[in-house]
């Protein structure tokens, strides 16, 4: 299982705080493509141009491999400080 979290504006846009997926994905890019294919709007919200992604709480890019039990998070560019 892979747990997918959403934060801030992206959480509101997606209408989900968390998803639990049973599928296996080779890498973050495969998971992203899978989610983007679910709804027309998600295509936009989850595109790499509009969102960052972390796997197990570290920022990574689409080539990062995924394993069962990973915690994946998608969120907008950060605005702290």
């Amino acid at each position, binding site marked *: 299982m892979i747990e997918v*979290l959403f*934060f*801030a*504006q992206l959480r509101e846009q997606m209408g989900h705080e968390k998803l639990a997926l049973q599928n296996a994905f080779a890498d973050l890019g495969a998971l992203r493509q899978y989610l983007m294919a679910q709804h027309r709007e998600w295509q936009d919200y989850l595109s790499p141009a509009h969102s960052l992604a*972390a796997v197990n*709480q*570290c*920022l990574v890019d689409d080539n990062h491999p995924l394993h069962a039990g990973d*915690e994946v*998070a998608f*969120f*907008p*560019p*950060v*605005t*702290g*400080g």
Partner: protein
Amino acid sequence: MQAKQLSDFISVQEANFSQAEEYLALCAGNRQDGAIVSFVGLVRDINSQHRVQKLTLEHYPAMTEKSLKKIVTEARSLWPISRVRLIHRVGALQASEQIVFVGVSSRHRGHAFQACEFIMDQLKTRAPFWKKEQDDKDEHWVQANQQDQQKARQWLLKPEDLSMFM
């Protein structure tokens, strides 16, 4: 450099902090360092032409401290700094309130200035915080700005300029 002087204090908290106490913690019993640089970020009254009434800071708790520790570790690998204190608030904040503190002590001022600004620049683009602003018109998520991305990247792109300070 004495190893015991190398300590990090990193905190993500709802409570306000005292800049004065943080400064003292950087100085107290610290006889080796000649330079203390500190930064405080405040909630601005006016952002993008609208008057900010309040601000809510959301974060990704499992990741926040981890990402801040990583940034401080990178700063230590770039400059010989001694003490680092980093506090970031979350939750509801009013205009003029303190949001973030970064303090660095070092033997030489150049290292302390560079490390302090580096930590802020990296935090701005890599630490999972998001601001929601309530102004006199509406409530909206603050958009990341392009200049912050450039400032953060510039530290990585110009090793020859950095070497001047090392």
